[in-house]
């Protein structure tokens, strides 16, 4: 390529002979064309051939590159489409799974709410039963105390009645007894009867009897 000349370069011209040197006569007009004239016609043709060859080569390479690029893009498109189909399938499965799980979650939340309500009712029932049991035990203890008091009052009444019988007997034959002893005995009997009456009143109060 370094031997190429620019289009506007001048063609080489014959150098004039030096002075004193004999020269041949110039060619007669109408003679055969000189060698120099043939070279000027041949050079542009070679250049055109080179350009043509180069252009063909470039076009061939471009065609080859285009074919390779088209193949690559075809393959890439196929793979992306396959990947897209796979992703769409996965997305559909996930959406279905999400819907199933959302349904399960809703059901679980409803079950949880129902269970919590049942738990609250059960706790409320446990608390109520514990309270009823405790208050029943309170009443049982009160009844036990009342029963103890009733037994005590019964004993006091028995003492009262027996004493009054003995006092009546003594009063029927009062001269046979020391008056002071009779009076003391009468006070003891009276105290026993008073205690019995007070005990009876206490029992009525405990039982709520007016």
């Amino acid at each position: 390529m370094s031997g190429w000349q620019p289009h506007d370069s001048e063609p080489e011209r014959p150098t004039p002979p030096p002075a004193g040197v004999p020269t041949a006569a110039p060619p007669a007009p109408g003679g055969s064309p000189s060698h120099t004239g043939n070279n000027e016609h041949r050079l542009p043709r070679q250049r055109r051939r080179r350009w043509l060859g180069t252009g063909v080569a470039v076009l061939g390479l471009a065609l080859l590159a285009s074919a390779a690029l088209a193949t690559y893009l075809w393959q890439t498109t196929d793979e992306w489409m396959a990947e897209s189909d796979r992703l769409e399938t996965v997305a559909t499965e996930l959406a279905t799974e999400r819907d199933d799980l959302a349904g399960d979650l809703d059901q679980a939340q409803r079950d949880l709410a129902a269970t919590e309500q049942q738990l609250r009712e059960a706790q409320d029932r446990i608390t109520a039963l514990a309270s009823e049991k405790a208050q029943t035990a309170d009443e049982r203890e009160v009844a036990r105390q009342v029963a103890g008091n009733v037994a005590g009052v019964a004993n006091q009444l028995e003492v009262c009645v027996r004493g009054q019988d003995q006092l009546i007997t003594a009063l029927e034959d009062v001269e046979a007894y020391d008056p002071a002893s009779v009076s003391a005995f009468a006070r003891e009997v009276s105290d026993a009867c008073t205690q019995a009456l007070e005990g009876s009143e206490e029992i009525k109060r405990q039982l709520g009897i007016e």
Partner: protein
Amino acid sequence: MRLVLAAAVALAGAAVGCGELPDLPPMPDPVAIGQTTAAPTPTPGATTLSPDGFRTTERVAVRVRNVGCGGVSTGSGFAVSEDVLVTNRHVVAGADTLQVSTYDGQDLLVETAGSAVVADLAIVRTRSALPAAVTLADADPEVGDTVEVVGYPGGGRLTSSTGTVLGYDEDPLNANAGQIVVTDARAEPGSSGSPMYDEQGRVVGVVYAATEDATQSLAVPLSTLRALLDDTSFDDGVPPCE
């Protein structure tokens, strides 16, 4: 011209050599949708639930029945350990028999009882195991703190009421040597011995009295309770009838 050729050759080479797809973004893991987060660890105190769903603050509350002094009276109390519960001195006073039952109606056998001299507090030891035990707070409650009282007002159902610490005052009943806590949490006869909790479910006092209209309650502060629990020599039986 050389540049054109080089570009064409390079394009062809690149087209042949790059036949692989770039990496795709990672797919979400389907298992992650169904995963659940770890359950929060329950903190001790009011929010702690037992297997039966009751709060610890409810499970530790016990009902105390005093059979003696010619009658039957009831109060409240709470467990401080597996076999020790705290109540008021006047709740156990004069008892021929002490009977203790739990939130779910279980009856517990009582071993011994003892009371403090300078405060309206008593300790009852049980032979049966108590269902749970309280956690004591670190300090007495401060004015404005929210408190909760859990007990058996009127000898009835297990009940809780909330209120605010109104302040500290001298004991109007002269049952306690130090200052007592005044709150607007409702309490009634039968609430005596109820634990008073802070917002974390820790005991900050023991209710021992209430105003006649039941709008305010009086409580022995935690510091006095701690002094009682630290004193091992008070175990001298129940006090006489009041």
